[in-house]
């Protein structure tokens, strides 16, 4: 499989108003896309500062419009927007709007891909400068750049072998691996994943030290928090919960007062969760949701004064 066949295999088959399958003219479309993109980038770089806000607003508004319309217009029920035929005019409009959502998402991904290049450029520049000027700890920068280069080369080589050279899927079996496949496995599974797990496991120690500071009884709030945490933690200890529960059962039998059942650890912990914790979380979620809605609305309508228009 060559690159052309690979790209053709990746593209969608079904066409919509928003998505065309270029077929054999793929290279031509790629060239046209590149030329248009380069021209657009050049034009954008010449836009005067006072027009930048309008350009950004226009792009933001157009990109957000399909999502807003898709939210408001009745979305055809259990529809496959690519393969189904709409039943009436209302559904036709619904199909048209919902088909537009995917290409906008794809465009965002493409922009994200370009921006990743900008990010990598920043990373390489910062560490190259550090090495060049022999700044403090420049050795770490050298290790970073070397790791970055080795991982990129080995990763692409491994992918190329698996996607283009290996037609039969023989590389899925370890016995057929080539040296580069072993190298990729060592770098990714053997080193990267292990370091990632090590970093994650450190959180356990950080939780301990943070909990120690947070649960020191300094104020009423800290005392309440510590008491609640203690009840919830004790509730997770099966033997203790059982023994405590049995003690309460005996007390109820002796005193004849069923109200004491509320003091079982699991009942008290459930009460804390359902009556205190969940309402608080829901209240915070309402506030956050409304804040996100307001922020999104301001961005979409170009009312936000922050960012590049500050």
């Amino acid at each position, binding site marked *: 499989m060559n690159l052309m066949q690979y790209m053709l295999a990746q593209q969608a088959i079904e066409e919509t108003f928003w998505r065309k399958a270029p077929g054999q003219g793929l290279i031509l479309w790629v060239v046209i896309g590149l030329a248009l993109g380069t021209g657009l980038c050049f034009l954008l770089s010449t836009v005067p500062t006072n027009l930048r806000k309008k350009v950004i607003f226009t792009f933001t508004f157009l990109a957000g419009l399909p999502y807003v319309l898709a939210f408001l217009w009745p979305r055809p029920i259990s529809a496959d927007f690519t393969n189904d035929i709409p039943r009436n005019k209302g559904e036709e409009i619904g199909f048209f709007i919902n088909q537009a959502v995917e290409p906008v998402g794809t465009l965002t991904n493409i922009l994200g891909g370009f921006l990743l290049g900008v990010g990598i450029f920043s990373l390489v520049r910062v560490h190259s400068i550090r090495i060049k000027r022999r700044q403090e700890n420049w050795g770490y920068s050298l290790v970073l750049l070397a790791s970055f280069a080795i991982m990129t080369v080995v990763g692409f080589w491994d992918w190329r072998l698996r996607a283009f050279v290996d037609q039969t899927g023989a590389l899925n079996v370890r016995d057929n691996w080539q040296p580069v496949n072993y190298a990729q496995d060592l770098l990714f599974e053997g080193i990267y994943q292990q370091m990632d797990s090590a970093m994650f496991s450190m959180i356990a120690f950080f939780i301990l030290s943070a909990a120690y500071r947070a649960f020191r009884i300094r104020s009423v709030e800290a005392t309440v928090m510590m008491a609640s945490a203690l009840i919830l933690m004790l509730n997770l200890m099966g033997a203790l919960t059982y023994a405590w529960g049995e003690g309460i059962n005996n007390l109820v039998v002796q005193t004849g007062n069923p109200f004491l059942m509320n003091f079982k650890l699991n009942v008290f912990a459930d009460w804390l969760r359902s009556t205190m914790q969940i309402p608080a979380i829901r209240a915070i979620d309402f*506030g956050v949701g409304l804040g996100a809605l307001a922020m999104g609305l301001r961005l979409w309508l170009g009312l936000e004064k922050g960012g590049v228009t500050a």
Partner: protein
Amino acid sequence: MFNWLQGEQYLDTAPVGIFVTLLVVVFILVNISRAKKGSEGLFIRRISGLNAIDDAIGRATEMGRPVLMVPGIGALDAISVQAVNIFAQVTKSAAQFSTPVRLCCGNAAVYAFAQEVIRDVYSQQGMGDRFTPETVQYISEQQFAFAAGVSGIIHREKVAATFLLGAFYAESLIFAETSNAIGAIQVAGSTQVTQTPFFIAACDYVLIGDEFYAASAYLTREPVLVGSLVGQDWAKILVASTVLFGTIFQSVELTGMTTEHRAGNAMVSVAESSNGERTEERKKKTDTMTNRLFNPFIPEELTKIEREKKETAQAAEGEGE
């Protein structure tokens, strides 16, 4: 009954969900309009986490150390844009005292956006030359590689203050505890309710919930932002009222007797019950008017609609068989 409104989103909560959303949008736009005409009478309560910004920058200036800012590891969305907006204000204050800042990004799009914003802030302060490649840095898209990178910067540069605002996950505590270990002042805020407790346990000041979104209005007193905040408050009153009245109506209704109830794919009157006897029973939670308002009864045939397939799809299905 619902044939005129065949939309998936209308089946879930009836038009109520869409109507409430539009009402909130109207609240926000009306208040922005009001604030533009004059925002003097609009009050924002004191938020201690945001008052601490100047103290933190002052401390960094006295110690001659940088201020670290992290907008989380989320993609470029409302949360990261808001975080960068707050950081623009922090940078503005820091630039006035020539205090260096470090903004570490875990997403390339956020990095590109933050770089533009922070560079603009320095230019506006007439200090364009102070913006260096290290001011805004891209670290890594991988969660723990990013955590390790930022922790390294905190340790090596001995930052005096850290601002952790945005979408954080498991790495939140790594940043907070590393900053605490070197004695930095920490101001944190996350929209993730699962991470907020970690920040409360480990940081000096925490923005909880929508305080994060109120921050730019609080810091800038920009009429559009203040108006938007008041609109959000109106919406919160609406939500709280709905919860309150819903609770009361639901409680009152549950004390009554039912005349009909849901049975599978139909509403069955008590008078038509299977054994032919009229038996009154207490209403269930699903029988109340409040519940039905938000969960309308939808016949099953309306939730699944069969459509004709395009010719190409039919051919593909034929090949598959």
